[in-house]
């Protein structure tokens, strides 16, 4: 029996979905207007140089936020992964890989601890941020080390026509969208953020869900650290310092919310791209002096997030 399932496009929902794409287009348009030459293969490669690690860190944060938690340690964790990649992974690949795999398990374990003891995730992850940073300094006391050859080769990949960061962003967005939004277990993961009690009553293990979400955050944190080291070629314990707030802002900018399991992988990728572009390229083209760039960065963040709140409110009314 074939039946039209009343696929009435929901306008409010559509607006919510289009907002991240709109803000990304706005930033790209501003750059194109300021400096048309930037809109080229080489230009995007330069501008989006650091976009891939930011995207991956944002997605790590998104998984945690899907379960109504917050990860304040992702930046320090990315730094730790970077230090391991620039030392052990290069010198003793087996040990390095084992440490990275172990750190994903630690992340899943944090999810278990948070669930089991009913702890606030911000407290646990804030504590862990110091642990990761301390470990990173132990592994690599001074900036240096060297990224494995294969990692640099992978990040230096230059596909024809489409700049690598854009291609990677599309592939990552498609993969995480499929995993979280289209698979049947992805629906359960999001459901835990929407109504945890109902999910438990339906017979699902909230412990397993939390561990999965945190484990995925750990996995994407590892990928973020690896890709970052592949680009910078050497490590530094503080290399991921800005990533924690950047990742949260990316998720929110991408249409996600702090509670309620409302997240969007494609939105988060676009949010991360917007921030990556607005953070450096746009400001440079606007000829903001380097001393003021961090402050200007913050101002852009506030503006963009405020616009999101305003537009969201306008739609609700």
């Amino acid at each position: 029996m074939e039946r039209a399932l009343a696929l009435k496009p929901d306008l409010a929902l559509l607006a919510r979905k289009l907002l991240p794409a709109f803000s990304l287009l706005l930033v790209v348009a501003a750059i194109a207007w300021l400096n048309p030459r930037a809109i080229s293969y080489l230009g995007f490669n330069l501008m989006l140089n650091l976009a891939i690690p930011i995207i991956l860190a944002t997605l790590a944060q998104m998984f945690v936020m899907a379960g109504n938690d917050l990860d304040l340690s992702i930046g320090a964790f990315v730094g730790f992964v970077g230090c391991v990649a620039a030392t052990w992974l290069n010198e003793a690949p087996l040990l390095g890989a084992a440490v990275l795999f172990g750190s994903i398990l630690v992340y899943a374990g944090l999810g278990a601890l948070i669930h089991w003891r009913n702890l606030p995730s911000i407290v646990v992850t804030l504590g862990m941020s110091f642990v990761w940073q301390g470990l990173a300094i132990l592994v690599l006391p001074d900036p240096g080390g060297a990224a494995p050859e294969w990692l640099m080769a992978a990040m230096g990949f230059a596909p024809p026509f489409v700049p690598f960061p854009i291609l990677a962003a599309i592939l990552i967005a498609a993969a995480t969208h499929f995993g979280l939004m289209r698979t049947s277990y992805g629906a359960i993961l999001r459901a835990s953020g929407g109504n945890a009690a109902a999910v438990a009553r339906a017979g699902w293990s909230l412990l397993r869900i939390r561990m999965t979400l945190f484990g995925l955050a750990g996995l994407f944190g590892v990928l973020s650290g690896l890709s970052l080291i592949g680009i910078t070629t050497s490590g530094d314990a503080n290399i991921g310092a800005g990533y924690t707030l950047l990742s949260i802002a990316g998720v929110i900018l991408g249409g996600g919310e702090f509670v309620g399991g409302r997240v969007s992988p494609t939105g988060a990728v676009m949010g991360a791209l917007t921030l990556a572009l607005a953070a450096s390229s746009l400001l440079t083209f606007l000829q903001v002096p380097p001393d003021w760039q961090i402050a200007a960065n913050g101002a852009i963040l506030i503006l963009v997030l405020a616009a999101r709140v305003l537009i969201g409110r306008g739609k609700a009314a």
Partner: protein
Amino acid sequence: MAPSSGSPIVSLSGVEKHFGAVRALAGIDLQVARGECVGLVGHNGAGKSTLMNVLAGVLAPTRGRIAIAGSLEEDWSARRARMRGIRCVFQELSLCPNLTVAENTRVLHAALKGFGWRRRAARLIADKLDEIFPGHGISPSAPVQDLSIDRRQMVEVARALTVTDEPLALVILDEPTSSLDAHTAGQLLAYMRRQVEAGLSVILISHMLGEVLDHSDRIVVMRDGLAVASDAATAFDRARLVREMGGEDRAAPDTAVPASARGQAPVRVRARPARQSGGPALVAHKGEVVGLAGLAGHGQTALLRAIHDAAPRGRGGITVDGPVAFVAGDRQSDGVFPQWSIARNITLRSLKALKQGPLIAPARERELAEAWQTRIAIRTPDIGNPILSLSGGNQQKALFARALASDAAIILMDDPMRGVDVGTKLEVYDIIRQEAANGRTFLWYTTETEELMHCDHIYVFRDGTIVADLARGDLTEEKVIQSSFQEAG
């Protein structure tokens, strides 16, 4: 009548459940036969919800035995209950607002996975909705957060009745019609009866006694964690049910203002729904109880909110004369502050009056809360306890106290009696009458026709407009239903 062949689908014997020193279930026995609808009634706090949670495997009983279809269950859990075909429609909606209707169906069914699960889930829930609520207008791809509360309840009920790989033997419906209007409630109850004839067992928990009397085969009355009466539904009437529950049946008091008095007292509120350009406006005078009737979700709540926003002086075509207070219907999401004490929840609307310099005077705060605790009979050993320690009915009383303790001259009520027990309702009706006699004005949206009998004047809503304006003397249930279904024009 129910067939009594074979062993009962569910048999509880001597089931007890203790929460600390509180015995929510005190050794209850309950049998439900195949193809039988058992109505379960009782005050809030009688143990109905606990019993249901034990049956659904959410709570483990402290003592007692559970047998399903004749076999004793040793390791009872939510998963096991589902495997044996027991489903629950919980009173607090248990949908995930961030997921679509189809995805919510998936949450209930572990079997909906693999390739094409989204299409199968959408088909499953759409077919069930069509079957129970023809003409429901709900799209399986709509996020639940965008649905109105009555549609959410329809999805909730339909979802519980969908079948994949697990059997469906017994459905527990806890206040399934509390957010539905008369028409959809009728659809649901008729469907339930058809399924019962076909062999499904149902436990129907409802505060709407007429619903239980008309649609059950047998009625079990609970009081203090025990089944105090169990008999064929035909052996009960309203008065006997109320008596067994430990309440007393009182007729609606005939203390309404005579129709001639209307128009002499000053007008407190004059408002028209936003979608309506001409026609009758809602008018409320000082000391009146004005009812907003009609099918659920036809603009009553929207108008109450508009009046609230326009207070205290009026705005945009809405005249309001005096401060207002709002009593929320959806108390979990709009009403209580779950982390706060009962006292704080009550005094919230009156903090300005409780100030001493820039600070709140704790003594005055406590005094006000205690005064209203006594006045409105909130059952708690200590007003400083967390609000969630109260039963649902008492939480609602605290919300009434919040509005009544304030300086508000106009009280807006958004179907506040949803899922509240009869005893509490009767007490609150009395207080409303007293407060109205003291000069307060009540605007009361209700989905229960019985409650309209307590109003002096009734406006019936349809599609966001006022379609009828009835004085109390003219009010009959038939008239309200008639106006609710007539096309506006």
